[in-house]
Each structure stands twice: as C-alpha cells, then as structure tokens.
C-alpha cells in the first residue's frame, strides 16, 4: 500500500476524527423512522462494524454521519464539525474529510477509472477547475497513488464498467482514499461480492485502518466478517442500538439478540 507518504505506518493519521452521535432521530418524509434516538461515541482510529438486518437503520446511520441523510433531531459530531448544523460549502468541506464506499460501488460506468477516482478530489478542487477539466499535478499524483495502493493502477485508463465487482469496489476505495480522508465509511461493502473477494476487500479496509490510522465504520450483516475484521461492534435493530461491545467476543446469543431471531446459515459468509 503506497500510503507511506501520508502517514507513517501503524501511527494514526494526524487528522483521524472521532464520531459522536447524540440522541439522533431520523424520520423520512414518507413517515418511516430510520433511527430512534441513537447515541454512541467512536474514538479516532477505531475500526467499528455496525451489524443488523436490512431495514435495521444501518444505512441510515452511516449516512447521517456525512449528512447524506439529514438527522431529524439530535447531534452528529464528526471531528471538529457538527454535521447536522451544516449545509452548502461547509457540509461539502466535512464530506471531503469523510470517505465512503457503497454496496453497489456507485461508479460512473462509462467514465474512465481515472475520472471516477478523481471524484475524490472534488472537495479540494474549485468548481471552475473541474468544469474546465483541468486536474492539478498534485491531484493526478494522489489519484495514481490511491489506485496503486489498491492494486488497480494498470487499469487507470479503462472504463469502470468493464471491471469485475471486486475490482470496482477497489476503485471505489481508491476514490475514497484520494480524498485523503479522516474517516472511512463503508455501507455493506461486500454484500455484492463473492466470498474470496469479500475477504480481500475487508482486508483492504482493515489496512486503511491499521496503516493510515483512519476511523473506519463499516456496515455488515454477516457475523463472521464483523468478528474477524473489526474490534468493536454496534448492533442495530429497528433503529435502536441493541449491542455495543467487542466484536471478537460477541456470542451467538448476542447476534440472535441483534437479529431478533435464531442464527441462520446465511448470517455467515463462510470460508
């Protein structure tokens, strides 16, 4: 991983941000309640999994952290910012410090891999420069380094749509890394991938945490991935925190409490 230029290995990046949610409630315009008063604190440099069934509020919670979903009430603090009070330029500035990857990769399939990763430089680039299509030398270098760190450098001029799922998620990680973020969010990053690829993407995320020292928050629905790759686990059920503790020692009973039903074979990835 070519992160050596940014932060010495093993030492948290100077800017890793803590995350604090205080009594956060999210009610969507259609009346559906996503979160029912969630409060939690995540220290800078922690690797945390958020576990729950679909519909438990995982995606909502992770999106309140970068303001993609506005909190209806409560406080969302990330590093020095109170996200729920910001809008416009300031909100974009915070988002610039928060990298995010998605279940569906969210790449522009017809654009080149280079341009997809250049998206990560948005918050550091004036709009008129993007409009004219000029990228600074530094931006190009950061993009290339990010792609190199996920092993996708040789494909840089290819179309994103031509890649396999695992490769797309690596490009998406590179896009997030090119933001040079303080926090990394991952919303079900391996749910669309086959087991071996899922493990390698989870390892990439783990390295982002250990080598760059970023605060990493990853949504998962599989218990073995949470145990294996994260140190702390937060369990969500129906928009409420029902578990918060170490991930490796979480028992099957803990998972049954989170899922609200007995463990099934599809709750683990296997291998």
């Amino acid at each position: 991983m070519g992160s050596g230029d940014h932060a010495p290995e093993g030492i948290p990046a100077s800017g890793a941000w803590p995350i604090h949610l205080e009594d956060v409630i999210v009610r969507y315009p259609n009346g559906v309640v996503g979160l029912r008063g969630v409060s939690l604190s995540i220290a800078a440099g922690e690797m945390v999994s958020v576990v729950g069934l679909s519909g438990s509020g995982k995606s909502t919670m992770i999106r309140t952290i970068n303001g993609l979903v506005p909190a209806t009430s409560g406080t969302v603090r990330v590093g020095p910012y109170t996200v729920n009070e910001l809008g416009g330029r300031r909100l974009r500035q915070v988002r610039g410090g928060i990298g995010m990857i998605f279940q569906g990769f969210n790449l522009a399939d017809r654009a080149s891999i280079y341009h997809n990763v250049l998206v990560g430089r948005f918050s550091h680039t004036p709009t008129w420069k993007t409009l004219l299509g000029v990228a600074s030398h530094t931006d190009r270098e950061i993009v290339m380094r990010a792609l190199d760190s996920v092993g996708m450098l040789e494909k840089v001029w290819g179309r994103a749509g031509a890649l396999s799922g695992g490769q797309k998620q690596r490009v998406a990680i590179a896009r997030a890394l090119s933001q040079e973020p303080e926090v990394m969010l991952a919303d079900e990053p391996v749910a669309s991938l086959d087991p071996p690829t899922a493990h390698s993407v989870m390892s990439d995320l783990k390295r982002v945490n250990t080598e760059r020292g970023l605060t990493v928050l990853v949504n998962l629905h599989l218990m073995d991935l949470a145990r294996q790759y994260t140190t702390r686990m937060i369990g969500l059920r129906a928009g409420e925190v029902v578990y918060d503790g170490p991930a490796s020692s979480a028992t099957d009973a803990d998972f049954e409490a989170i899922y609200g039903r007995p463990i099934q074979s599809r709750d683990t990835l296997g291998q």
Partner: protein
Amino acid sequence: MIVVVLIAITVITTLPALGGVHIDLGAIARNWANGSERIAKLFHPDPSILPRTWKPLLETLEMAVVGAALSALLALPLSLWAARPSNPTRSRAGVRAVLNVVRAVPDLVYATILVAMVGVGALPGVITLVLFDLGIVVKLVSEAIDSADASYMEAGHAAGGTQTQINRLTALPQTWPVYASQVLYSLELNVRVSSILGLVGAGGLGRLIDEVRGFYRYGALSMIILEILVVVIAIEVASNYLRKRLR
C-alpha cells in the same frame, strides 16, 4: 390492455360532443381520378430539374448540419439542467417549462416569424432548426438521464462535490452515448424539415419544391423527393455507423 385502448379510441372518435371524426369513405372513390393522375406523373421523375437542385440541396444540407451543431452545443447543459438527478433544484421546472413552450410551437410558425424578422434566406431556417432540435434533443436526453441509474451521483455528493462538478466529471460521460445518438437523429430530421422550410422563404430546397408544385411539374417534384430520399438514407447510414462506434 389492447382491448381497452381500442375501446377508448372508438369511444373518443365517435363522441357526439366532439363531433366525431368525419371520415367519408365515399370521397375516396369520387376523387380518386384527380389524385391517380398526379401519382402517375410522380412515377415518372424528370431528371432535367437536377442541375437546378444542387445549390438549394447544398443549402439544405448546410442548414441541417449548422442547425444540428448549434442545437447540440446548447442542448448539453440544458439537458443536464432539465433532469432531476443532475439538477435537484427548483430551477429544473423553469427549464422544462421553457422547453415545453419551445416544443409546442410548430417549426413552420418559427420559420414564418423569423423570415419576417431577419429576412429571407438560410438564417431564419437555421434558427428554426436550432429551436426545433433543442426541443427534441433536450427532452429525450433529459428523460434518459432521469431514468438512468444515478448512484454515482451519491458518491459524488459523499465526496463533497458540487452538483456542477458531479455533472461535469461523471454525468457527462454517462450521458454521452444517448446525447450523441439524439444529436445524430436531429441531423436526420433536419434534412427533412429544412426542405420544407423553404416554403415560407427560409432557404433550402423548399422554395424549389414550392415552385415546381405550383407549375404542376410532378415529374420534377418526384425527382427532388428522390434526391431528398437519397440524402436522408445516406445520413442515416452514416449516423448508424457512428452510433455503433459510440457504444
């Protein structure tokens, strides 16, 4: 479903309140002779008109190309402004409203008014074609953007990008094939439309068509029609080839 549509059509066309649609099949038999004579003449193209067609044909082609190019230039930002994913603000409704008006006005009306405003010739024709193409291209492209998967936009917002940045760097390449395809289609339409615009003095083949029709020279008229047909097919072949290269 089909039955429902058929019933609906039948009911609507026969509603007494609307007066129904008067289709008198007997009229066809009574007037058949008038038309058949002309059709017979149309089947004997008169090549002697050809030398006179080259210049107006060239003018028609020029108008078609210039009109398509200018409208393409304007349509790109307008399409992005008229689609929900690439313009979530209220201004979208304004852009759409203006374009609906532009589309509602018939091209011959534009041409007639513009001929009066800027004079006889190719210029009113070109402006008419630009307006005509804008209506079509912006509508089709913005609807394509509306219905396409726009999850990449969420990633752009998550990275702290402005809508303009997201549109420029990602929505543009995503939209490109649809856009280019519609621009080529507008070029095809332009050849057909611009050969009519001459009827009101807006340049191109239309003036010649009007003249030979006025003198009942149906042979010459069919020659011109054949010529337009050849050009339209040539453009269609060329644009089909280009479209394949775009994918």
